[in-house]
């Protein structure tokens, strides 16, 4: 406790409300500001809160509580970053596409960012919110120690109802990103869509490859 450990302090409903209010205030400040970087203040606040909840092992449960407090229905398990953005940003000024883009960037930062690097610096270093690397990797954890992941890309070979152009270069670029991710995680798995671009590895049963097998 003296060293700042706080896992024994529960998060009361009032505390949850106070946290949501704080994020809403950050959002309002973004709206009032003309600084193009103002959004990073809001994203940092969301990021810090979810990372802290995750550290306590309660990110999803608390995201559910936040949704409940703000009277949002959640039929499936919520993604904590997206849930907090939904709860605290004005829906009239934020569309679903931007919301999911931000939550994707924050998930990426939660995976790759060093603890002492400011979120803004990290995102900028990766090329920004909308065009950067953060936005390219879409992750969703599945069992198996939480390491294997499904990959959904806007440049998938046969994207249903997609207007995105799927070029060979796009796939190669994304394959490099996914491979970097796989190697960083200890070299677990590369989905079939990218297997043909990286070569030199044994192909798995489903067409994907395991980088370090």
């Amino acid at each position, binding site marked *: 406790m003296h060293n700042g450990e706080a896992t024994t302090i529960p998060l009361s409903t009032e505390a949850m409300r106070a946290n949501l209010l704080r994020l809403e*205030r950050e959002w309002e400040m973004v709206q009032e500001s003309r600084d193009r970087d103002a959004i990073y203040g809001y994203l940092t606040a969301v990021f810090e809160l979810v990372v*802290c909840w995750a550290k306590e092992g309660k990110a999803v449960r608390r995201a559910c509580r936040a949704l409940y407090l703000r009277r949002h229905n959640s039929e499936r398990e919520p993604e904590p970053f997206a849930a907090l953005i939904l709860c605290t940003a004005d829906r009239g000024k934020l569309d679903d596409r931007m919301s999911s883009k931000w939550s994707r960037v924050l998930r990426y930062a939660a995976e790759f960012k060093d603890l002492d690097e400011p979120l803004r610096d990290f995102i900028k270093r990766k090329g920004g919110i909308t065009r950067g690397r953060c936005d390219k990797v879409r992750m969703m954890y599945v069992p198996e120690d939480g390491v294997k992941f499904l990959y959904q890309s806007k440049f998938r070979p046969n994207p249903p109802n997609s207007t995105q152009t799927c070029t060979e270069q796009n796939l190669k670029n994304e394959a490099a990103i996914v491979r970097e991710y796989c190697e960083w995680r200890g070299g677990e798995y590369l989905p079939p869509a990218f297997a043909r671009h990286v070569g030199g590895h044994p192909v798995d049963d489903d067409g994907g490859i395991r980088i370090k097998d």
Partner: protein
Amino acid sequence: MDKILQEIADEAYEVARLRRNGVQPTRDRVFAEVLAELEANGDAMRFVNSKGRIAWKATPRLRDYLKDLELEAEEDLEDEF
């Protein structure tokens, strides 16, 4: 815990210790109660520090409030002279 919260928690502990109602609260317990109360009031927030541990800091709201108080006090002091 940052400096602002440390001061508030220390003060709360001293108050609890001097209450003399026969119960000697532990420091950790008083700190936990104070932090929970501050968080519920929107004055404290938990975060993951650079060592990957959960720590506490004052919220921007509390910082702004204290800063305003400080500026007011400085202005009052200037008016005195």
